[in-house]
Protein backbone atom coordinates (compact mmCIF):
# COMPACT_ATOMS: atom_id res chain seq x y z
CA UNK A 1 0.00 0.00 0.00
CA UNK A 2 1.50 3.34 -0.95
CA UNK A 3 2.09 5.70 1.89
CA UNK A 4 -0.57 8.36 2.30
CA UNK A 5 0.34 12.02 2.34
CA UNK A 6 -0.08 12.40 6.07
CA UNK A 7 2.05 12.65 9.17
CA UNK A 8 0.97 11.17 12.50
CA UNK A 9 0.67 13.56 15.38
CA UNK A 10 0.24 12.68 19.02
CA UNK A 11 -2.01 14.83 21.19
CA UNK A 12 -1.94 14.77 24.96
CA UNK A 13 -4.57 16.06 27.36
CA UNK A 14 -3.11 18.42 29.94
CA UNK A 15 -5.36 19.25 32.84
CA UNK A 16 -5.22 22.36 34.96
CA UNK A 17 -3.12 20.88 37.76
CA UNK A 18 0.03 23.01 38.27
CA UNK A 19 3.13 21.31 36.88
CA UNK A 20 1.14 18.92 34.74
CA UNK A 21 2.87 19.95 31.50
CA UNK A 22 6.28 19.56 33.11
CA UNK A 23 5.26 16.06 34.21
CA UNK A 24 4.26 15.15 30.67
CA UNK A 25 7.47 16.62 29.27
CA UNK A 26 9.45 14.54 31.76
CA UNK A 27 7.60 11.39 30.73
CA UNK A 28 8.38 12.12 27.09
CA UNK A 29 12.06 12.50 27.88
CA UNK A 30 12.12 9.38 30.08
CA UNK A 31 10.52 7.43 27.25
CA UNK A 32 13.09 8.84 24.85
CA UNK A 33 10.51 10.48 22.63
CA UNK A 34 12.19 12.74 20.11
CA UNK A 35 9.98 15.78 19.53
CA UNK A 36 10.31 17.41 16.11
CA UNK A 37 7.61 20.05 16.48
CA UNK A 38 4.95 20.83 19.00
CA UNK A 39 2.14 23.17 19.81
CA UNK A 40 0.08 23.84 22.92
CA UNK A 41 -3.52 24.97 22.84
CA UNK A 42 -5.04 26.10 26.07
CA UNK A 43 -8.42 27.06 27.37
CA UNK A 44 -9.53 27.90 30.88
CA UNK A 45 -9.08 24.72 32.85
CA UNK A 46 -7.13 22.50 30.46
CA UNK A 47 -4.80 22.35 27.50
CA UNK A 48 -3.92 20.11 24.59
CA UNK A 49 -0.28 19.37 23.82
CA UNK A 50 0.23 18.30 20.20
CA UNK A 51 3.54 17.02 18.87
CA UNK A 52 5.18 15.57 15.80
CA UNK A 53 7.62 12.99 17.09
CA UNK A 54 9.94 10.37 15.72
CA UNK A 55 8.14 7.00 15.93
CA UNK A 56 4.69 8.28 16.97
CA UNK A 57 3.21 4.76 17.41
CA UNK A 58 5.78 3.91 20.03
CA UNK A 59 5.33 7.28 21.78
CA UNK A 60 1.57 6.75 21.76
CA UNK A 61 1.81 3.30 23.37
CA UNK A 62 4.32 4.43 25.99
CA UNK A 63 2.29 7.41 27.06
CA UNK A 64 -0.91 5.41 27.13
CA UNK A 65 0.77 2.83 29.36
CA UNK A 66 1.64 5.63 31.76
CA UNK A 67 -1.98 6.60 32.16
CA UNK A 68 -1.89 9.76 30.07
CA UNK A 69 -4.83 10.61 27.84
CA UNK A 70 -3.21 10.49 24.40
CA UNK A 71 -4.51 10.26 20.89
CA UNK A 72 -2.99 9.78 17.45
CA UNK A 73 -4.30 11.95 14.65
CA UNK A 74 -3.23 12.62 11.11
CA UNK A 75 -2.06 16.03 10.03
CA UNK A 76 -0.99 17.32 6.65
CA UNK A 77 2.60 18.52 6.37
CA UNK A 78 3.39 21.12 3.71
CA UNK A 79 7.07 21.91 3.13
CA UNK A 80 7.63 25.61 2.59
CA UNK A 81 11.27 25.61 1.49
CA UNK A 82 11.19 26.69 -2.14
CA UNK A 83 7.73 28.12 -2.53
CA UNK A 84 7.26 31.61 -1.17
CA UNK A 85 3.58 32.14 -0.59
CA UNK A 86 3.06 28.40 -0.20
CA UNK A 87 1.09 28.83 2.99
CA UNK A 88 -1.25 31.31 1.35
CA UNK A 89 -1.68 28.99 -1.60
CA UNK A 90 -2.52 25.99 0.58
CA UNK A 91 -4.97 27.99 2.69
CA UNK A 92 -6.63 29.43 -0.43
CA UNK A 93 -7.09 25.96 -1.98
CA UNK A 94 -8.68 24.61 1.20
CA UNK A 95 -10.87 27.68 1.48
CA UNK A 96 -12.13 27.26 -2.06
CA UNK A 97 -12.94 23.63 -1.36
CA UNK A 98 -14.77 24.54 1.81
CA UNK A 99 -12.38 22.60 4.02
CA UNK A 100 -11.82 24.03 7.50
CA UNK A 101 -8.37 24.28 9.03
CA UNK A 102 -8.82 23.34 12.70
CA UNK A 103 -5.34 24.47 13.65
CA UNK A 104 -1.84 24.65 12.29
CA UNK A 105 1.71 25.12 13.45
CA UNK A 106 5.13 25.38 11.89
CA UNK A 107 8.42 23.59 12.30
CA UNK A 108 11.68 25.00 11.09
CA UNK A 109 13.96 22.12 10.10
CA UNK A 110 17.31 21.83 8.35
CA UNK A 111 15.61 21.60 4.99
CA UNK A 112 13.41 24.61 5.66
CA UNK A 113 10.06 25.26 7.29
CA UNK A 114 7.23 22.73 7.37
CA UNK A 115 3.69 23.72 8.09
CA UNK A 116 1.45 21.17 9.80
CA UNK A 117 -2.27 21.56 9.49
CA UNK A 118 -5.18 19.67 10.92
CA UNK A 119 -8.32 19.88 8.78
CA UNK A 120 -11.86 18.65 9.21
CA UNK A 121 -11.70 16.44 6.08
CA UNK A 122 -8.19 15.09 5.64
CA UNK A 123 -8.77 12.99 2.48
CA UNK A 124 -10.49 15.83 0.62
CA UNK A 125 -7.73 18.22 1.66
CA UNK A 126 -4.99 15.88 0.41
CA UNK A 127 -6.53 15.45 -3.04
CA UNK A 128 -7.28 19.16 -3.39
CA UNK A 129 -3.74 20.17 -2.44
CA UNK A 130 -2.11 17.51 -4.66
CA UNK A 131 -4.35 18.47 -7.58
CA UNK A 132 -3.09 22.03 -7.35
CA UNK A 133 0.49 20.81 -7.45
CA UNK A 134 1.39 21.37 -3.81
CA UNK A 135 3.93 19.06 -2.29
CA UNK A 136 2.86 17.10 0.80
CA UNK A 137 5.08 15.05 3.06
CA UNK A 138 4.61 11.42 4.01
CA UNK A 139 5.49 9.48 7.12
CA UNK A 140 9.28 9.01 7.10
CA UNK A 141 10.00 12.13 5.06
CA UNK A 142 10.77 14.13 8.18
Amino acid at each position, binding site marked *: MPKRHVIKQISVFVNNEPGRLAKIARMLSEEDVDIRAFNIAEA*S*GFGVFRAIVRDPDRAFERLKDRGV*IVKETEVIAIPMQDRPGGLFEAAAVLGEEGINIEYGYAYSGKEGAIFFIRVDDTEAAISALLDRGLELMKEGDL
Partner: protein
Amino acid sequence: MYWNARMECMPPEELKNLQYRELKSLVYKLYSFNNFYRDRMDEHGVHPDDIQSLEDIRKLPFMYKQDLRDHYPCQMFTSPREEVVRYHVSSGTTGKPTLVGYTEHDIEFWTDSLARALTSIGIGRGDVVQVSYGYGLFTGGLGLHYGAERVGATVLPASVGNTERQLELMMDLDVTAIACTPSYMIHMGEVAKRLGIDFIRDTKLRKAILGAEPWSEGMRRHIQEGLGIEAYDIYGTSEISGPMFTECEERNGIHIWGDVALVEIIDPETEEPLPPGEVGELVITVIKKEAMPMVRYRIRDLTYMEDDVCPCGRTSVRMGRISGRSDDMLIIRGINVFPSQVEHTLMNIPEVGEQFMIILDRKGALDNMTVQAELRPEHFSDKMSDMMAIKKRIDNDMRKYLNISVNVELMDPGSLPRFEGKAKRVVDRREF
Protein backbone atom coordinates in the same frame (compact mmCIF):
# COMPACT_ATOMS: atom_id res chain seq x y z
CA MET B 1 -44.72 49.27 66.86
CA TYR B 2 -46.54 46.04 66.24
CA TRP B 3 -48.44 44.90 63.17
CA ASN B 4 -50.60 42.46 65.11
CA ALA B 5 -50.02 43.21 68.78
CA ARG B 6 -52.44 40.54 70.01
CA MET B 7 -50.65 37.71 68.24
CA GLU B 8 -47.13 39.06 68.59
CA CYS B 9 -47.38 39.74 72.32
CA MET B 10 -49.75 36.96 73.38
CA PRO B 11 -48.81 35.55 76.81
CA PRO B 12 -46.87 32.28 76.25
CA GLU B 13 -49.47 30.06 77.96
CA GLU B 14 -52.29 31.48 75.88
CA LEU B 15 -50.18 31.06 72.74
CA LYS B 16 -49.55 27.41 73.62
CA ASN B 17 -53.27 26.82 73.98
CA LEU B 18 -53.87 28.39 70.62
CA GLN B 19 -51.12 26.30 69.05
CA TYR B 20 -52.54 23.12 70.51
CA ARG B 21 -56.01 23.86 69.13
CA GLU B 22 -54.64 24.78 65.71
CA LEU B 23 -52.41 21.71 65.60
CA LYS B 24 -55.25 19.39 66.53
CA SER B 25 -57.56 20.76 63.87
CA LEU B 26 -54.75 20.66 61.29
CA VAL B 27 -54.04 17.00 62.04
CA TYR B 28 -57.73 16.08 61.79
CA LYS B 29 -57.97 17.92 58.50
CA LEU B 30 -54.90 16.22 57.12
CA TYR B 31 -56.03 12.80 58.23
CA SER B 32 -59.35 13.32 56.46
CA PHE B 33 -58.23 15.02 53.25
CA ASN B 34 -54.59 14.23 52.58
CA ASN B 35 -53.93 10.63 51.50
CA PHE B 36 -50.20 11.01 51.80
CA TYR B 37 -50.24 12.14 55.40
CA ARG B 38 -53.00 9.75 56.45
CA ASP B 39 -50.97 6.82 55.12
CA ARG B 40 -47.89 8.09 56.88
CA MET B 41 -49.78 8.46 60.17
CA ASP B 42 -51.25 4.97 59.78
CA GLU B 43 -47.79 3.51 59.11
CA HIS B 44 -46.58 5.34 62.17
CA GLY B 45 -49.48 4.03 64.25
CA VAL B 46 -50.78 7.41 65.24
CA HIS B 47 -54.32 8.77 65.04
CA PRO B 48 -55.52 12.39 65.37
CA ASP B 49 -57.14 11.40 68.69
CA ASP B 50 -53.67 10.72 70.09
CA ILE B 51 -52.91 14.44 70.04
CA GLN B 52 -53.94 15.43 73.56
CA SER B 53 -51.40 18.18 74.25
CA LEU B 54 -48.98 20.38 72.36
CA GLU B 55 -46.12 18.04 73.34
CA ASP B 56 -47.95 15.20 71.58
CA ILE B 57 -46.70 16.71 68.32
CA ARG B 58 -43.72 14.39 68.88
CA LYS B 59 -45.97 11.42 68.19
CA LEU B 60 -46.46 12.61 64.62
CA PRO B 61 -44.26 11.37 61.80
CA PHE B 62 -41.74 13.65 60.08
CA MET B 63 -42.00 15.00 56.55
CA TYR B 64 -38.98 15.26 54.25
CA LYS B 65 -38.03 17.13 51.10
CA GLN B 66 -38.05 13.78 49.33
CA ASP B 67 -41.79 13.49 50.09
CA LEU B 68 -42.41 16.61 48.03
CA ARG B 69 -40.40 15.19 45.13
CA ASP B 70 -42.03 11.78 45.35
CA HIS B 71 -45.47 13.37 45.20
CA TYR B 72 -44.71 15.88 42.47
CA PRO B 73 -46.57 17.78 41.28
CA CYS B 74 -49.82 18.03 43.23
CA GLN B 75 -50.34 14.79 45.16
CA MET B 76 -49.51 16.47 48.46
CA PHE B 77 -52.18 19.11 48.04
CA THR B 78 -54.97 19.21 50.57
CA SER B 79 -56.96 21.82 48.69
CA PRO B 80 -58.72 21.30 45.35
CA ARG B 81 -56.63 22.51 42.41
CA GLU B 82 -58.94 25.42 41.65
CA GLU B 83 -58.43 26.77 45.18
CA VAL B 84 -54.71 27.03 44.49
CA VAL B 85 -53.93 30.57 43.36
CA ARG B 86 -50.18 30.32 42.91
CA TYR B 87 -47.28 27.91 42.41
CA HIS B 88 -43.65 28.36 43.32
CA VAL B 89 -41.05 25.89 42.12
CA SER B 90 -37.48 25.09 43.10
CA SER B 91 -35.06 22.91 41.15
CA GLY B 92 -34.90 19.19 41.87
CA THR B 93 -32.32 16.44 42.16
CA THR B 94 -33.30 14.18 39.34
CA GLY B 95 -35.07 16.65 37.13
CA LYS B 96 -38.06 16.55 39.46
CA PRO B 97 -38.56 19.94 41.04
CA THR B 98 -40.17 20.80 44.35
CA LEU B 99 -43.54 22.40 43.82
CA VAL B 100 -45.39 24.45 46.41
CA GLY B 101 -49.02 25.54 45.99
CA TYR B 102 -50.77 28.39 47.78
CA THR B 103 -54.44 29.14 48.38
CA GLU B 104 -55.56 32.72 48.81
CA HIS B 105 -55.42 32.11 52.55
CA ASP B 106 -51.82 30.84 52.24
CA ILE B 107 -50.70 33.98 50.40
CA GLU B 108 -52.56 36.02 53.02
CA PHE B 109 -50.87 34.55 56.12
CA TRP B 110 -47.47 34.58 54.37
CA THR B 111 -47.93 38.27 53.57
CA ASP B 112 -49.17 38.94 57.11
CA SER B 113 -46.17 37.15 58.60
CA LEU B 114 -43.82 39.38 56.60
CA ALA B 115 -45.87 42.47 57.43
CA ARG B 116 -45.31 41.74 61.14
CA ALA B 117 -41.61 41.13 60.44
CA LEU B 118 -41.13 44.34 58.43
CA THR B 119 -42.96 46.35 61.08
CA SER B 120 -40.72 44.82 63.75
CA ILE B 121 -37.68 46.24 61.98
CA GLY B 122 -39.29 49.63 61.55
CA ILE B 123 -40.26 49.46 57.90
CA GLY B 124 -43.66 50.83 56.91
CA ARG B 125 -45.51 53.63 55.21
CA GLY B 126 -43.08 56.20 53.83
CA ASP B 127 -40.33 53.67 53.22
CA VAL B 128 -39.15 52.75 49.73
CA VAL B 129 -38.23 49.06 49.62
CA GLN B 130 -36.02 47.73 46.85
CA VAL B 131 -36.71 44.02 46.44
CA SER B 132 -33.55 42.60 44.92
CA TYR B 133 -34.47 38.97 45.35
CA GLY B 134 -35.34 37.04 42.21
CA TYR B 135 -38.93 37.38 41.06
CA GLY B 136 -40.52 34.36 39.45
CA LEU B 137 -40.49 30.72 40.47
CA PHE B 138 -38.30 31.62 43.47
CA THR B 139 -40.30 32.78 46.49
CA GLY B 140 -38.03 35.62 47.61
CA GLY B 141 -39.07 38.38 45.22
CA LEU B 142 -42.84 38.02 45.33
CA GLY B 143 -42.85 37.21 49.06
CA LEU B 144 -41.08 40.40 50.09
CA HIS B 145 -43.00 42.34 47.47
CA TYR B 146 -46.36 41.44 49.00
CA GLY B 147 -45.11 41.96 52.55
CA ALA B 148 -43.68 45.41 51.83
CA GLU B 149 -46.81 46.52 49.99
CA ARG B 150 -48.91 45.31 52.90
CA VAL B 151 -47.16 47.57 55.40
CA GLY B 152 -47.73 50.51 53.09
CA ALA B 153 -44.20 50.91 51.79
CA THR B 154 -43.41 51.82 48.19
CA VAL B 155 -41.95 48.79 46.46
CA LEU B 156 -39.26 48.84 43.79
CA PRO B 157 -39.33 45.34 42.28
CA ALA B 158 -35.70 45.40 41.12
CA SER B 159 -35.19 41.61 41.09
CA VAL B 160 -31.59 40.40 40.56
CA GLY B 161 -28.83 41.62 38.28
CA ASN B 162 -27.81 44.85 36.57
CA THR B 163 -26.20 46.25 39.69
CA GLU B 164 -25.31 49.65 38.25
CA ARG B 165 -28.92 50.31 37.33
CA GLN B 166 -30.04 49.11 40.76
CA LEU B 167 -27.70 51.63 42.39
CA GLU B 168 -28.93 54.38 40.13
CA LEU B 169 -32.56 53.65 41.01
CA MET B 170 -31.67 53.37 44.68
CA MET B 171 -30.34 56.95 44.57
CA ASP B 172 -32.97 58.41 42.26
CA LEU B 173 -35.93 56.98 44.18
CA ASP B 174 -34.57 57.53 47.71
CA VAL B 175 -34.72 53.83 48.58
CA THR B 176 -34.66 53.38 52.36
CA ALA B 177 -34.59 49.59 52.67
CA ILE B 178 -33.43 46.69 50.53
CA ALA B 179 -34.09 42.95 50.59
CA CYS B 180 -31.45 40.74 48.96
CA THR B 181 -28.84 38.09 49.69
CA PRO B 182 -25.98 39.20 51.97
CA SER B 183 -23.45 38.46 49.24
CA TYR B 184 -25.36 40.63 46.78
CA MET B 185 -25.39 43.42 49.36
CA ILE B 186 -21.61 43.22 49.60
CA HIS B 187 -21.34 43.06 45.82
CA MET B 188 -23.48 46.20 45.53
CA GLY B 189 -21.17 47.93 47.98
CA GLU B 190 -18.16 46.99 45.88
CA VAL B 191 -19.74 48.14 42.64
CA ALA B 192 -20.78 51.41 44.32
CA LYS B 193 -17.23 52.00 45.48
CA ARG B 194 -15.92 51.45 41.96
CA LEU B 195 -18.43 53.97 40.63
CA GLY B 196 -17.51 56.50 43.29
CA ILE B 197 -20.87 56.15 45.06
CA ASP B 198 -20.75 56.55 48.83
CA PHE B 199 -23.67 54.66 50.40
CA ILE B 200 -23.79 56.93 53.43
CA ARG B 201 -23.49 60.20 51.51
CA ASP B 202 -25.30 59.38 48.27
CA THR B 203 -28.15 57.07 49.28
CA LYS B 204 -30.99 57.11 51.81
CA LEU B 205 -30.61 53.39 52.46
CA ARG B 206 -30.77 52.58 56.16
CA LYS B 207 -31.95 48.99 56.44
CA ALA B 208 -31.23 45.72 54.68
CA ILE B 209 -33.13 42.46 55.04
CA LEU B 210 -30.66 39.76 54.16
CA GLY B 211 -31.03 36.03 53.78
CA ALA B 212 -31.55 33.05 51.46
CA GLU B 213 -27.96 31.95 52.06
CA PRO B 214 -25.71 31.41 55.07
CA TRP B 215 -24.02 34.44 56.53
CA SER B 216 -22.33 35.38 59.77
CA GLU B 217 -22.01 38.06 62.42
CA GLY B 218 -18.72 38.97 60.77
CA MET B 219 -20.51 39.66 57.50
CA ARG B 220 -23.16 41.62 59.36
CA ARG B 221 -20.50 43.90 60.89
CA HIS B 222 -18.78 44.30 57.53
CA ILE B 223 -22.05 45.31 55.84
CA GLN B 224 -23.25 47.56 58.65
CA GLU B 225 -19.98 49.44 59.03
CA GLY B 226 -19.12 49.54 55.35
CA LEU B 227 -22.48 50.77 54.14
CA GLY B 228 -23.74 52.61 57.19
CA ILE B 229 -26.94 50.57 57.40
CA GLU B 230 -28.63 48.13 59.77
CA ALA B 231 -28.65 44.55 58.51
CA TYR B 232 -31.41 42.11 59.53
CA ASP B 233 -31.52 38.34 59.12
CA ILE B 234 -34.51 36.76 57.39
CA TYR B 235 -35.49 33.10 57.30
CA GLY B 236 -37.70 30.86 55.24
CA THR B 237 -37.77 28.26 52.49
CA SER B 238 -40.27 27.60 49.74
CA GLU B 239 -41.60 24.50 51.55
CA ILE B 240 -42.84 26.63 54.46
CA SER B 241 -44.09 29.37 52.02
CA GLY B 242 -40.96 31.40 51.39
CA PRO B 243 -39.08 34.00 53.42
CA MET B 244 -41.33 34.52 56.45
CA PHE B 245 -39.54 35.49 59.63
CA THR B 246 -36.97 38.15 60.50
CA GLU B 247 -35.18 39.61 63.44
CA CYS B 248 -36.73 42.65 65.12
CA GLU B 249 -34.86 45.88 65.79
CA GLU B 250 -33.11 44.18 68.73
CA ARG B 251 -31.35 41.87 66.27
CA ASN B 252 -31.10 39.02 68.76
CA GLY B 253 -32.76 36.15 66.95
CA ILE B 254 -35.46 35.60 64.36
CA HIS B 255 -39.02 35.81 65.71
CA ILE B 256 -41.04 32.76 64.70
CA TRP B 257 -44.70 33.75 65.04
CA GLY B 258 -46.27 31.09 67.23
CA ASP B 259 -49.67 31.24 65.59
CA VAL B 260 -48.03 30.62 62.18
CA ALA B 261 -45.47 27.96 62.88
CA LEU B 262 -44.48 25.49 65.56
CA VAL B 263 -40.78 24.86 65.86
CA GLU B 264 -38.87 22.04 67.49
CA ILE B 265 -35.13 21.56 67.79
CA ILE B 266 -34.10 17.92 67.74
CA ASP B 267 -30.91 15.93 67.84
CA PRO B 268 -30.64 14.85 64.19
CA GLU B 269 -29.34 11.40 65.19
CA THR B 270 -31.60 10.42 68.10
CA GLU B 271 -34.50 12.68 67.01
CA GLU B 272 -34.97 13.62 70.68
CA PRO B 273 -35.95 17.23 71.53
CA LEU B 274 -33.21 19.61 72.66
CA PRO B 275 -33.61 22.39 75.25
CA PRO B 276 -33.50 26.12 74.37
CA GLY B 277 -30.03 27.36 73.51
CA GLU B 278 -28.79 24.00 72.26
CA VAL B 279 -27.97 23.59 68.58
CA GLY B 280 -29.85 20.89 66.72
CA GLU B 281 -31.95 20.35 63.66
CA LEU B 282 -34.92 22.62 63.08
CA VAL B 283 -38.25 20.83 62.63
CA ILE B 284 -41.05 23.09 61.55
CA THR B 285 -44.83 22.73 61.40
CA VAL B 286 -46.63 25.49 59.57
CA ILE B 287 -50.00 25.39 61.30
CA LYS B 288 -51.66 27.90 59.03
CA LYS B 289 -50.87 26.27 55.69
CA GLU B 290 -53.89 25.18 53.67
CA ALA B 291 -52.93 23.96 50.18
CA MET B 292 -49.87 22.07 51.27
CA PRO B 293 -49.52 21.73 55.02
CA MET B 294 -46.08 20.90 56.33
CA VAL B 295 -46.08 18.92 59.55
CA ARG B 296 -42.84 18.25 61.41
CA TYR B 297 -40.88 19.10 58.31
CA ARG B 298 -37.19 18.19 58.55
CA ILE B 299 -35.83 21.34 57.02
CA ARG B 300 -32.24 20.20 57.68
CA ASP B 301 -30.98 23.53 58.97
CA LEU B 302 -29.04 23.46 62.22
CA THR B 303 -29.82 26.19 64.75
CA TYR B 304 -31.09 26.81 68.28
CA MET B 305 -34.11 28.48 69.90
CA GLU B 306 -34.45 31.06 72.65
CA ASP B 307 -37.77 31.21 74.50
CA ASP B 308 -37.27 34.16 76.85
CA VAL B 309 -39.26 37.30 76.09
CA CYS B 310 -37.46 39.66 73.73
CA PRO B 311 -36.89 43.25 74.93
CA CYS B 312 -39.13 44.30 72.02
CA GLY B 313 -42.04 42.76 73.92
CA ARG B 314 -42.83 40.00 71.44
CA THR B 315 -43.41 36.67 73.09
CA SER B 316 -42.60 34.34 70.21
CA VAL B 317 -39.62 32.00 70.34
CA ARG B 318 -36.53 33.30 68.56
CA MET B 319 -34.30 31.32 66.29
CA GLY B 320 -30.52 31.77 66.32
CA ARG B 321 -28.27 31.88 63.28
CA ILE B 322 -28.24 28.88 61.01
CA SER B 323 -24.94 27.24 61.80
CA GLY B 324 -24.99 24.52 59.16
CA ARG B 325 -26.94 21.70 57.60
CA SER B 326 -27.67 18.21 58.81
CA ASP B 327 -27.48 17.04 55.20
CA ASP B 328 -25.02 17.91 52.45
CA MET B 329 -27.02 20.68 50.81
CA LEU B 330 -24.94 23.64 49.61
CA ILE B 331 -26.26 27.15 49.20
CA ILE B 332 -24.54 28.87 46.30
CA ARG B 333 -25.59 32.42 45.47
CA GLY B 334 -28.84 31.69 47.24
CA ILE B 335 -29.52 28.55 45.20
CA ASN B 336 -29.79 25.18 46.90
CA VAL B 337 -27.52 22.56 45.41
CA PHE B 338 -27.08 18.97 46.51
CA PRO B 339 -23.90 17.12 45.48
CA SER B 340 -26.21 14.30 44.34
CA GLN B 341 -27.67 16.69 41.74
CA VAL B 342 -24.20 17.29 40.35
CA GLU B 343 -23.56 13.56 40.30
CA HIS B 344 -26.81 12.85 38.53
CA THR B 345 -26.14 15.53 35.93
CA LEU B 346 -22.64 14.19 35.22
CA MET B 347 -23.92 10.62 34.94
CA ASN B 348 -25.89 11.64 31.88
CA ILE B 349 -22.85 13.09 30.14
CA PRO B 350 -20.99 10.28 28.35
CA GLU B 351 -17.76 12.26 27.92
CA VAL B 352 -16.96 12.25 31.64
CA GLY B 353 -16.77 9.63 34.37
CA GLU B 354 -18.82 9.41 37.54
CA GLN B 355 -16.14 10.76 39.90
CA PHE B 356 -16.36 14.45 40.66
CA MET B 357 -15.34 17.18 43.08
CA ILE B 358 -17.06 20.47 43.89
CA ILE B 359 -14.90 23.43 44.84
CA LEU B 360 -16.53 26.54 46.24
CA ASP B 361 -14.75 29.87 46.29
CA ARG B 362 -15.82 33.39 46.95
CA LYS B 363 -14.54 35.94 44.46
CA GLY B 364 -15.28 39.32 45.91
CA ALA B 365 -18.76 38.82 47.30
CA LEU B 366 -20.01 36.22 44.87
CA ASP B 367 -19.79 32.47 45.16
CA ASN B 368 -18.02 30.51 42.49
CA MET B 369 -18.64 26.84 41.96
CA THR B 370 -16.12 24.67 40.15
CA VAL B 371 -16.96 21.13 39.15
CA GLN B 372 -14.06 18.83 38.39
CA ALA B 373 -14.86 15.77 36.32
CA GLU B 374 -12.69 13.10 34.75
CA LEU B 375 -12.52 13.08 30.98
CA ARG B 376 -13.04 9.67 29.42
CA PRO B 377 -9.99 8.92 27.19
CA GLU B 378 -12.09 7.86 24.20
CA HIS B 379 -13.70 11.30 24.13
CA PHE B 380 -10.44 13.22 24.16
CA SER B 381 -9.92 15.24 21.00
CA ASP B 382 -6.94 17.18 19.70
CA LYS B 383 -9.42 19.82 18.52
CA MET B 384 -10.18 22.56 21.01
CA SER B 385 -13.65 23.00 19.56
CA ASP B 386 -14.55 19.41 20.55
CA MET B 387 -13.09 19.87 24.00
CA MET B 388 -14.89 23.16 24.55
CA ALA B 389 -18.12 21.48 23.49
CA ILE B 390 -17.71 18.97 26.34
CA LYS B 391 -17.22 21.77 28.86
CA LYS B 392 -20.12 23.66 27.38
CA ARG B 393 -22.39 20.65 27.65
CA ILE B 394 -21.57 20.17 31.33
CA ASP B 395 -22.12 23.86 31.98
CA ASN B 396 -25.43 23.84 30.08
CA ASP B 397 -26.71 20.77 31.91
CA MET B 398 -25.76 22.23 35.29
CA ARG B 399 -27.58 25.40 34.35
CA LYS B 400 -30.59 23.45 33.18
CA TYR B 401 -30.96 21.09 36.16
CA LEU B 402 -29.34 23.05 39.00
CA ASN B 403 -30.13 26.56 37.81
CA ILE B 404 -26.55 27.59 38.40
CA SER B 405 -23.54 28.30 36.23
CA VAL B 406 -20.34 26.46 37.08
CA ASN B 407 -16.71 26.44 36.04
CA VAL B 408 -15.91 23.04 34.60
CA GLU B 409 -12.47 21.52 34.98
CA LEU B 410 -11.71 18.41 33.01
CA MET B 411 -9.33 16.06 34.78
CA ASP B 412 -7.29 12.98 33.89
CA PRO B 413 -9.00 9.66 34.58
CA GLY B 414 -8.11 8.42 38.04
CA SER B 415 -6.83 11.79 39.19
CA LEU B 416 -9.76 12.70 41.45
CA PRO B 417 -9.87 11.26 44.97
CA ARG B 418 -11.78 8.00 45.46
CA PHE B 419 -13.66 7.54 48.72
CA GLU B 420 -14.34 4.50 50.79
CA GLY B 421 -17.42 5.06 52.89
CA LYS B 422 -18.68 8.60 53.16
CA ALA B 423 -17.47 10.67 50.23
CA LYS B 424 -16.17 14.17 50.81
CA ARG B 425 -16.69 15.67 47.41
CA VAL B 426 -17.03 19.27 48.45
CA VAL B 427 -14.18 21.65 49.18
CA ASP B 428 -15.74 24.83 50.56
CA ARG B 429 -13.19 27.64 50.67
CA ARG B 430 -15.76 30.37 51.23
CA GLU B 431 -15.57 32.46 54.36
CA PHE B 432 -18.91 33.62 55.66
